[in-house]
């Protein structure tokens, strides 16, 4: 039986040049057997959606530290829908104020991870949801 690794696109938004967090997540997911496409600093909503489509991703992980999540996430979710990519799960990581979390979930974000989230939590979440989607 061929193995079917989960494909995850990770992209970072914002110009603070701080990408350590996302790289730690990338390595943790790799070590858990995922295929991780590090898309780097994301320029536009269109380019991140294009990456998700072309890479046939199961997950999109967005790292947003700039505080612009309430404008960017709705745009991404809408662009994914328009591209016919609503099956792709979206995770958001970064500094997200507590009251915004339910709003993001309402927009269709599967899960929001705060700065101190242990890696195994992210890994377990990605793996469990994949099996649910394919059950």
């Amino acid at each position, binding site marked *: 039986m061929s193995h079917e*690794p989960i494909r995850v696109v990770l992209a970072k938004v914002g110009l603070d040049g701080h990408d350590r967090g996302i790289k730690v997540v990338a390595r943790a997911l790799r*070590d858990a057997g995922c295929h991780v496409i590090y898309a780097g600093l994301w320029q536009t909503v269109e380019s991140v959606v294009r990456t998700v489509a072309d890479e046939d991703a199961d997950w999109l992980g967005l790292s947003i530290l700039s505080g612009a999540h309430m404008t960017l996430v709705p745009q991404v979710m809408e662009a994914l829908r328009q591209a*016919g990519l609503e099956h792709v799960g979206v995770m958001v990581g970064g500094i997200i104020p507590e009251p915004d979390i339910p709003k993001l979930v309402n927009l269709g974000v599967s899960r929001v991870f705060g700065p101190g989230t242990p890696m195994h939590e992210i890994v377990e979440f990605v793996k469990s949801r994949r099996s649910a989607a394919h059950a």
Partner: protein
Amino acid sequence: MLESQLWQGMRQRDRRSLARLITRASRGLGIETIRRLGPPEKPARVFAITGSGGVGKSTLIGKLIPQFRERGRTVAVLACDPESPLTGGALLGDRFRMGAPLDDGVYIRSLAACSGRQAIADHLDAVIRLCEEFGFDRIIVETVGAGQGDTAVRAWADLVVLLLQPETGDELQWEKAGVLEIADLMVIHKADLPGADRVAQQVRSALEVAGGPVVPVLLVSSRTGQGIPELATALETLPSRSRRGDDRSAFLVDAQQMLIHRLQHPAATELLAKWRSGRIDIQEALRRLLEETSVSAQ
């Protein structure tokens, strides 16, 4: 989604369908359907970009894409990065280095290659065929790194480009590994760094000594742009190796796979130990390797 729907999507030039079929093919699914496609209506030219880790393969591909686009060609890039043999996981970072443009005429796809086994992803021939079927004119394959698996790429590429860089001790590497034999085109990359001219000289004289077909040696820098248009022109104009009829490289691929397989045989480990302790000489070790690890011996 059903496979028939994906093929329907391919005909309508739906990129999601292409992407999904590539995922399936890379996992060994739907390969028979792809084989049955027969020869492509419009064959693409396939380039393999190879060279050791960090030599700048992805960066250079990123610079070549607009060159092909200016010449009116659509481009698909298949970027291979190593997969961990232990976890099956992979970090695919080439795309980021290429600065993937938002252009319908460009498709970039990251693929994992089983490390330790080969420099390209599994079923790459089928993946290439899918990109061809979709209508891409030029297909660029980035391999994991120069070395043992590289003969595999010869079977599928019209041209193989080997990248070397100055000041890394690479000189010694390529002389030992005989990697010069692989290449149809040599690029001394990072030509903005000191020592590039010297490496170019060494490579040229090594090629001369080796005889064989004339292999162009180009000095290129992705940082300054030096040599990029010339490289694109060379890729467009050099005659293709006849990839589909290249039974010599198909033979090499099979022979190599066989040897890799046999080296994992316990008898191979024993022979290595005997040779290292001086109990047998290398000729005998090699002869017995072939005998004692053959299928019948297993």
